[in-house]
């Protein structure tokens, strides 16, 4: 595999399903990816038909386009969506860099940044459960958790993810930033810790359950030969 092809895969690994909060590469959404000798990257994404709504699909295809264009050795990128009922409109919209509203003229009223922010915000809440749960298991109490900063948490993939989601939302990510934080960036008080953690876990269960159903559907779809 050439460096460029490997670079394309790595770039696709940064593209998230916004609602599942997982990379499209882990979700099995990348049907194929190639790079021609003259630097044209061709990526085909496939999503669980119907399950994935057009606005999510658009976000993923557009993000994949942006990510792949950044790869060294890629001169031009063609990212298309396979087998989605609105694939044609999405493919044209992304190719023309025209935005979601333009691609679905007359059918959509809002651009997708707000949607992206909404899901990032949910991911930033769910991520606190991922990071805090092991601490709770080790006996950390509400006082300790309310006072804890990101710098005091042992390094982990989940911590990196949490920082990344917060950074995209413009929330504090430094070592002195509190681990537990409301969506508006304010600190969670000791008294609020039990409810906050329950809510964080609830968000996580919702996101992860959806991911499981989605992957299960993809699996049965593949087994049925994408009938």
């Amino acid at each position, binding site marked *: 595999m050439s460096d460029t092809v490997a670079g394309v895969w790595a770039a696709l690994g940064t593209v998230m399903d916004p*609602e599942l909060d997982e990379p499209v590469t882990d979700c099995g959404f990348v049907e194929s990816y190639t790079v021609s000798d003259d630097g044209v990257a061709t990526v085909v994404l496939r999503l*669980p*038909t*119907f*399950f994935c*709504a*057009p*606005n999510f699909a658009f976000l993923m295809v557009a993000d994949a386009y942006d990510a792949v264009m950044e790869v060294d050795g890629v001169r031009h990128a063609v990212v298309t969506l396979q087998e989605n*009922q*609105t694939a044609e409109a999405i493919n044209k919209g992304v190719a023309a860099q025209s935005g979601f509203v333009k691609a*679905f003229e*007359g*059918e*959509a*009223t*809002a651009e*997708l940044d*707000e*949607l992206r922010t909404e899901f990032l915000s*949910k991911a930033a809440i769910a991520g606190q459960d991922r990071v805090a749960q092991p601490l709770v*298991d080790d006996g950390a109490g509400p006082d300790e958790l309310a006072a804890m900063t990101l710098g005091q948490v042992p390094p982990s993939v989940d911590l990196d993810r949490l920082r990344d989601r917060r950074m995209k939302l413009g929330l504090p990510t430094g070592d002195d930033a509190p681990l537990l934080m409301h969506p508006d960036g304010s600190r969670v008080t000791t*008294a*609020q810790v*039990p*409810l906050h953690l*329950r*809510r964080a*876990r*609830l*968000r996580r*269960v*919702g*996101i*992860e*359950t*959806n991911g*499981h*159903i989605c992957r*299960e*559907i993809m699996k*049965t*779809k593949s087994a*049925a030969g994408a*009938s």
Partner: protein
Amino acid sequence: MYEKDGEKYFVVDSHGHFWDASRENWREGREEFAKGWIDCFYGYHQLAPPETHWDYEKFLKPTPEDLERDIFTEGHVDVLIHQSTYLKEWYVNGFNTTEQNAATIEKFGDKIIVNGRFDPREGDAGLKQLEADAKKYNFKGIKVYTAEWNGDSRGWKLTDPACYDFLQAAQELGVKNIHAHKGPTIWPLNKDAFSADDVDHCATAHQGLNFIIHHSAIPRIADICYKAVQEPNVYAGLSVVVGALMHARPKFFAKVMGELLFWVGEDRMLFGGDYNIWTPKWQVEGLVDWQMPDDPAFSDYPRMTTASRKKILGLNAARLYDIPVPAECQLPEVAAEAAEQDPAKPGEQLVAGS
């Protein structure tokens, strides 16, 4: 009725259909949508235990004999509530209309309840139709599908002013229960059609109605959980929760059940088998056998008791629909009184105490 270890469970399946997705019913020029819809259902069907899988062709259109066997003979169901879903933009005669579903009443009588539907975008004609249908079929419940297509429109909201007119009319016609599909999305283009944000406003504004949120708003379970804590007339429907997760993803099934038991509470959870995406037999038997895992990761979720199983499988829905329950299947009175004092909803206490 289902009997296990000396306990008798009265079973109300709150989410059934008697659909026609046969090729003859696919609207010309809209075949890809009609096929896409039922293919999506067939994908979900695969999440059931393999021995319950149907052949695709058979899945397109069950017969009355299938329904009798799967629901009543083998499925342990005492009363089935049909949720009418029209989708006439894709299916010539509709996917499962009130008329289609009502045809099963002739055969099964009181064992079937047919819920109506309305679409506020149909205006006065829709109101007249609702009135005629409600009188004819004696509706106690209405299914609303806010993401349904209608001409150029790709969906509507429960808070649309026209919807309030329909809800008021329905209430005057004797409807008590509004079933909203707020689950996995099919195709709404506007993000609003995904959101369950309209439920709490609507539920607050209509205290005389119960709002049953089907599929517990998967993947937005958190939304329904918060709403149920705030609004006493919001219920969680378990269709898809049991069907898609109990067999295929047991660990996540336990987590989702744990969250629902914690936030919504066992008094406001309704079993739904979602026939014929799934048959009820394995779901009823599985729920009766199911318990929260002993794993420490699940230790702060409520556990299931025989009483919680009886409520979820039938007693809660029987209460909403005034269905008579045989004495042998009811909870002992002491337990019922205790349930009234303790809302069995720890989430509410946590929110109140914060």
